[in-house]
């Protein structure tokens, strides 16, 4: 036993002396920066993040010049298949055997939470761009976990605030009947009521409901100004499509989607989606800068970027900036630098990464254009109003993150 221990020690010392000179030579721990893009490459979230996230990350690296302080920057990517265990084991392998320095993408909250938990133990920065759960920066916040693009606080709070202020006082909810839907509805309802609005009704629709028409007619006869869709994915798309069949928007009610991506709008088409309002962090044709970047992305990917794609580009760029400015890839140092920086690029203006990991930035309430207003295939959204960062995100005074209070 003692003999083995001794051998082990000798081995470890030898290994340490062998790797030490390398470390000193490159300034970085392993002479390169390696970024892991871990996403849903084949399932439900493929089109909103997936392979497009790898392209966005590569664009960020190319724009950065492909190297930092003479060290190459590499990408590694994998499919987490929406399974937390696969996500965590991939991340573990990347960190232990492939020397990954930062992990990004991570759509799907359960995957993001498991990878962020692992990365916390291993002291690796995660910059989640795709998952929504506020638990990432609240109950389960991590000193190295950054939540970059949106969260389930920013989405409904942003949409509800703006819509109530624009006259949508009476709300009726169609809620996906499980934890996610209920919390989305409760969050939104609380905001509506705090602004003097009123929730006039709610119906809990079972998950994966085929026919929403019955619920939509109940919403219509409730006399509400706004029908809040506290659901996601196929349920949202079905509900919107059927609202169109029954002319609900044309007869004066507004639809509010709590989690909608531009790719959803594109696949639904304007005939169906027109008038829908929702919150997003990014509108590709908002200004010349976003437009130029998005058109480059479109050439490589064949579709315009979602807010998540643009967020991956921004996250990777700012991570590399922090490495460059500090001259190291040491996790503590880089994370501290990221916390000091004010983020300015085509995706974010004046963004700040808070101590709980939340990237505080302005969000936008958008409305889907009418077919007659759209000038091109992807000209789908109009910005209705800006939601300032301090309203969109949980303030540091209210956060439940143990790192802050």
């Amino acid at each position, binding site marked *: 036993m003692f003999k083995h221990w001794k051998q082990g020690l000798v081995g470890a010392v030898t290994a340490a002396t062998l790797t030490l000179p390398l470390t000193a030579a490159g300034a970085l721990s392993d002479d390169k920066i390696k970024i892991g893009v871990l996403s849903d490459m*084949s*399932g*439900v979230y*493929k*089109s909103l993040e997936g392979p497009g996230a790898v392209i966005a990350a590569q664009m960020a690296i190319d724009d950065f010049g492909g190297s930092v302080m003479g060290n190459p920057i590499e990408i590694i990517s994998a499919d987490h298949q929406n399974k937390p265990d696969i996500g965590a084991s991939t991340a573990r392998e990347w960190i232990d055997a492939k020397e990954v320095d930062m992990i990004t993408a991570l759509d799907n909250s359960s995957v993001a939470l498991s990878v962020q938990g692992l990365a916390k133990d291993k002291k690796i920065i995660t910059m989640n761009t795709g998952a929504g759960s506020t638990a990432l920066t609240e109950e389960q916040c991590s000193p190295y976990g950054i939540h970059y693009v949106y969260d389930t606080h920013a989405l409904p709070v942003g949409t509800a605030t703006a819509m109530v202020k624009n006259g949508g006082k009476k709300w009726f909810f169609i809620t996906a*009947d499980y934890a996610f839907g209920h919390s989305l509805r409760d969050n939104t309802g609380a905001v509506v009521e705090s602004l003097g609005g009123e929730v006039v009704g709610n*119906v*809990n*629709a*079972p998950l*994966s*409901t*085929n*026919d929403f*028409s*019955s*619920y939509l*007619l*109940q919403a219509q*006869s409730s006399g509400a100004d706004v029908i809040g869709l506290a659901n996601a*994915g*196929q349920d*949202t*798309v*079905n509900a919107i*499509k*059927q609202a169109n*069949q*029954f*002319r609900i928007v044309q007869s004066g009610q507004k639809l509010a989607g709590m989690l909608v991506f531009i790719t*959803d709008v594109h*696949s*639904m*088409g304007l005939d*169906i989606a027109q008038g829908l309002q929702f919150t997003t962090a990014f509108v590709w044709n908002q200004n010349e800068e976003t437009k130029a970047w998005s058109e480059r992305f479109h050439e490589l990917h064949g579709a315009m970027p979602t807010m998540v794609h643009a967020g991956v580009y921004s996250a990777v760029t700012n991570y590399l900036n922090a490495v460059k400015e500090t001259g190291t890839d040491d996790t503590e140092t880089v994370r501290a630098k990221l916390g000091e920086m004010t983020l300015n690029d085509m995706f974010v203006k004046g963004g700040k990464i808070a101590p709980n990991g939340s990237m505080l930035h302005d969000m936008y309430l958008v409305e889907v254009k009418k077919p007659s207003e759209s000038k091109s295939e992807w000209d789908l959204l109009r910005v209705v109003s800006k939601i300032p960062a301090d309203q969109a995100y949980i303030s540091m005074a209210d956060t439940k993150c143990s790192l802050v209070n």
Partner: protein
Amino acid sequence: MQVILAQALLGLNVGVFYAMLSLGLAVIFGLLNIINFAHGAMYMLGAFIALIGYSFLEQWLGISLQIGFWASLILVPLLVGLLGVLIERLLLRRLYDLDHIYGLLLTFGITLILQGLFSNYFNVSGTPYPGQPESLSGVVNLGFMYFPTYRLFAIVFSLVVCFATWFFIEHTKLGSRLRAGVENPDLTQAFGLNVPLMITLTFAFGAGLAGLAGVLAAPIYSVSPLMGADLIIVVFAVVVIGGMGSIMGAILSGLALGLIEGLTKVIYPPAASTVIFFLMVLVLLFRPAGLFGKEK
């Protein structure tokens, strides 16, 4: 009252799809004794073929070719029926001497393969079918509500198909031969009828019905790889309630359960997806052969 009427009509709208699908299942089970788990996948396939024919052929093949809704109503059931022929001839035929469960597992496997293939290439949250004919795009004022013309068309069309099928099987010479072939294949064959061919065509017909339901559903619901999986379990419950193998039972219980589900959506929405199974349990307790089934 108006609310109840409106919801009843919406329930009927769901009911006709249950009826068409459970009818196909009942025909296949009644005549072939196969529990066809691939029925939902064939419904999904029907919707996808219509979508591909309308939106993607031109894009994929590079030639100007678009198959419209009306043509799809005829072509799609034929294509899905053809797939039914292949499945029956190449796969199911080998299992007839084995227990029911083998057929069920095989068809379940086919379902998983088809769903996997389509999930790989299409958006799982659903793609809209843009080919709904202009003539059916408006709304009709029914006095108590405005109802989309297309949905009304789907209700009437499905009812016609359902009752035509029932009439064909129960009241025509060909139908009676079919039933005879099922009741006693050896004797029927001795009379010079080609029983294996009849079985193949029956399976193809059931599959074609599912495909047809898929085309009808495409403009109402989004076309998604999981649309059949979501429905098939409910449809099985409908078949059990109606009585396995009973043609009229499948049609009537499909319509009735659509109505009941529709009304549950108003009275107690969270139970809407379970009310059918609750009824199934009651029926199994008190009439194990189903409401219209014959005790064996």
